[in-house]
């Protein structure tokens, strides 16, 4: 097997959904931005790139029609560079990077780009909703419930209170604020500019520094009403009949932010990097995808990480630093509980609760964030993992390289 290295990782700042700076920016522009940055920062001859793999979870309308290839063309990549869009829901950006790396590791490609794009303000969540939720046979057969109900189910089943969830959320905000203040994302952030080169957004604008658990405690639980009135709570309890009721604890303040953003990661073999004059930053040790119970939906990270670790011959305790996507507070709380990992080494620079989760891109964003922080702390092994709709999970393990 060919070793695959990460050479560079970039991301746009994340624009918020309502009155956000990126509301006026087409998603194909976001894709172009990160691809152009990878090329320009690294003085890259794009004809060396064998494929561009982008995650995009609502690949319709402005994000439809294979945005990876179209963004590459728009970014003036060599026309020999193909592209493909993938969708494994919330993990798509990481899955895209894994697939890009797999092409290299299998010897079928030399250098590829993984990443993702999502403009949730322009192409909202649910735009491409398929049969899982809406086909009556499928929905009843699989006991579908919306992800918010699943998140509350995780909290109920594993014993996390409203206070626990709000505390984690407040911590995410504080860590993100500190990270930005300390300029820890400088290496990866690529500002989004307009046609005339004027900056539209330079920082993650979804953050609410100064958020406390107390201030979050005032928010109403978002999914209680739908759970009660639309039957979703009862459907969930049909899968988990040992529970008397669902304790609804999640709300906008302790769930991931709905935002716009894009990311791209340049990966390749040792030789390809040398050919391009690039220094490897980390090696991809391995990755894994799993399926898990779809009604509770969000418990995948522990299983996916365990699978990746096992294949890599590692244990959870070997990992120095973790990024676990903050889809909902309870997801991270359960992960830490399941693998006995300390919160001191999870999402140390904040997460999607503070900064937002642009669905197709997040997987690549957190991998870049992980790598940046591993370099800052001089750590060796890191793992990025995300929960995924319909009960899946993805995890990727990276190992820093001394060039």
């Amino acid at each position, binding site marked *: 097997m060919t070793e695959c290295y990460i050479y560079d990782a970039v991301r746009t700042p994340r624009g918020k959904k309502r009155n956000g700076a990126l509301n006026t920016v087409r998603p194909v522009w976001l894709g172009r931005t990160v691809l152009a940055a990878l090329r320009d920062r690294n003085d890259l001859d794009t004809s060396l790139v064998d494929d561009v793999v982008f995650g995009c979870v609502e690949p319709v309308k402005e994000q439809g029609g294979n945005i990876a290839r179209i963004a590459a063309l728009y970014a003036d990549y060599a026309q020999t560079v193909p592209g493909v869009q993938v969708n494994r829901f919330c993990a798509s950006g990481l899955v895209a990077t894994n697939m890009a790396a797999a092409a290299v590791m299998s010897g079928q490609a030399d250098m590829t780009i993984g990443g993702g794009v999502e403009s949730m303000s322009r192409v909202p969540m649910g735009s491409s*909703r398929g049969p899982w939720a*809406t*086909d009556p046979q499928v929905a009843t057969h699989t*006991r*579908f419930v919306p992800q918010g109900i699943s998140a509350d189910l995780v909290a109920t089943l594993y014993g996390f209170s409203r206070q626990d969830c709000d505390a984690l959320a407040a911590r995410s905000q504080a860590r993100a604020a500190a990270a930005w203040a300390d300029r820890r994302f400088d290496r990866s952030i690529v500002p989004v500019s307009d046609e005339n080169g004027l900056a539209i957004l330079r920082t993650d604008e979804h953050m609410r520094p100064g958020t406390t658990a107390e201030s979050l405690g005032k928010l109403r639980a978002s999914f209680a009403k739908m759970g009660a009135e639309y*039957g979703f709570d009862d459907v969930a309890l049909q899968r988990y*009949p*040992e529970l*008397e009721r669902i304790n609804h604890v999640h709300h906008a303040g302790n769930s991931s932010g709905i935002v716009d953003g894009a990311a791209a990661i340049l990966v390749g073999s040792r030789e390809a990097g040398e050919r391009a004059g690039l220094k490897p930053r980390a090696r991809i040790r391995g990755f894994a995808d799993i399926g898990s119970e779809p009604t509770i939906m969000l418990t995948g990270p522990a299983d996916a990480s365990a699978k990746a670790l096992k294949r890599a011959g590692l244990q959870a305790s070997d990992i120095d630093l973790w990024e676990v996507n903050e889809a909902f507070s309870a997801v991270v709380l359960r992960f830490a509980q399941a693998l006995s990992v300390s919160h001191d080494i999870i999402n140390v620079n904040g997460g999607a609760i503070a900064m937002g989760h642009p669905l197709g891109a997040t997987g690549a964003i957190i991998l870049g964030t992980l790598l940046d922080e591993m370099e800052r702390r001089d750590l060796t092994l890191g793992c990025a993992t995300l929960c995924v709709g319909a009960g899946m999970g993805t995890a990727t393990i990276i190992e820093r390289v001394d060039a």
Partner: protein
Amino acid sequence: MSAPEIFSYDRDESGIVTLTMDMPGRSQNVWGQASIDAFSAVLDRLAGDDAATGVIVTSGKKDFLAGADLQAIRQMTIPGRSAEELAATSDALGAQLRRLETCGKPVVAAINGTALGGGFELCLACHRRIVVDSPRIQLGLPESGLGLLPGAGGTQRLPRLIGIRNSLMPLMEGKRLRPGKALKLGMVDEAVPADQLLDAARAWLATEPPATQPWDNKGFEPPGGDMSNPQNNSMMMVSAAMYTARTFGNYPAGAAILSCVSEGLRLPLDQALLVEQRYFVKLLLDPVARNMVRTLFLSMQEANKLARRPEGPARKAPKKIGVLGAGLMGAGIAYVAAKSGIEVVIIDRDEEQAAKAAAYATAREDKGIARRRSTPEKKAAILGRIHPTTDYSKLEGCDVVVEAVFEDRDVKAAVTKAADAVLGDDAVFGSNTSTLPITGLAEASSRPARFIGLHFFSPVERMPLVEVITGAQTDDATLAWALDFVQALGKTPIVVRDARGFYTSRVFGTYVTEGMVMLEEGITPALIENAGKRSGMPMPPLSLADQVGLTLMAQVGRQTRADLGDAAPANPSTPVLEKMVFALDRGGARGGRGFYDYSEQGKQLWPGLGEHWPRAAAQPSAEALVERFLLVQVLEAIRCVEEGVISDAGDVDVGAILGWGFAAYTGGPLSYVDTHGAAQVLARAEALTAELGDRFAPPALLREMAAAGSTFYPTE
């Protein structure tokens, strides 16, 4: 002279053809092989009739067309039919309705009476629907209530007519609607006085309307859009969830109906009708439909027609009855009787108590008026028939007296004697007791042949079942007149022989008991309750026990042991009941605390349960508990049959579903046995006996049936 035809074909001078359906020798028009064939012939004639300019479809009977014929329905209950066979025959009606719809002439349905199921689907296939505005007329598609769907185009035409959103309730709930409501929903176009019906139909034809349905026109979109509209997809998501939440996957009809609409409204009608047929066949293949049709339609009809009535005695519709005791049950019985046009003398120990009957009726009628189901005139008439008194002499001339006083032998004996002194020789004396054997109570009567059990269920005006219990001395005439009385009340009787617990209480009790035994085994209380719901019982067992009252149950248990001594049957729930009531002082819902804590916010399982009945390390699956809940009742029902307590299979199943809400999707305890096969049920009973004890011991009757491969119901 030729035989009278099912459809008459009358063309007038202006070319309007009036098709009048009037099946000879029947009180109702129904769809079956003969009527579908006759309809096809009429359509052939219409196709060749160049002078025809328009068509009116109406009925020569009181009702328009109320569904399928019994033969067709009985066919549906026979197991073992293949998908091929069903697919080849199930669209017979639908094909003719499509022909009507596309015959090239405008067709108006002049709906002079009730149109349900296939009858209403006929109306939907017409280009216009005009109904007589009468409160006695019912319109709708009730197939879902029998585990089926309207398979002659109903799932496709209704949403195209009134929109997806508005069609879901009528399709899924199968409610019978009055003309006013149907008009509001758009299911009919006009509601007119009876004497204007045909004129209105002709007037519409005179406007020279198009002879095509909107959905056969290019560019058609139903109101609210079709399934390409994202809002309709979201609605499907919610509808599917609410349906799953309600039915636990036990009733496939709802999901099939949703899928017919969801899938069909992405296609042109002819293709959509193919989809509908596939789901219709799927339901016909499913035992749920077979079982529900048999029990909730055929057996219930038999019971309502008093199939168990002894033939000799002449029918007697009671004109005046007496009720002894104006408590909850007595007041309810009085109300129902008065509503049915019967004069009611209601007696209690003082005027104030007796007047409670009037208060009960008043409250119910006021609610009814608020919901526009009753009127002040009706209320006055009903109250005018209720005569509260303390004077037993007022019982003179009563056809029936129902005793509904305390469950106390002495009190019952006293009122029995007081009534007997006044009653005529033919007056039937019925006791509403739920626990005391009839034969023993009859000893207090001077006319024991006229003594019978009439076990009503609460709330009386809503619960359709009456358990009629014959004592050792009850004679045929009494049984016959008691059944006449139940029929006059509009209720469904089952006939049971006297034994402790009769049929319903005895079998139902095993469900509640099983829940308490599970608690004692250390099964998580929430799991017990959720499994109870999943099994299809209307309430989970611990919650139900709280409602019935733990104190009451514990006291009944102690009374039984006092009465019978060593002969008392072992009751596995005794340890839990004794502890809850006498050690922990948790008597049930009424006292605010039982297995649950009750407050204004609602109820919650008492956290202390885990302390007194520690959780077992290994918990069973919900499915395992469901099997226990159903099987423990099924086996007890079989014992009742074996002991001669109840002999008619239909009564067993109807009584279970109507009496205590036994899982309707099974068709009832005996249908459950037929569905799984006696051999399979025997094997499970033996396995559970070994694991859990003798309450699962298979009765000899079950062993015999398993050995012979026989069934409770006919299989062809």
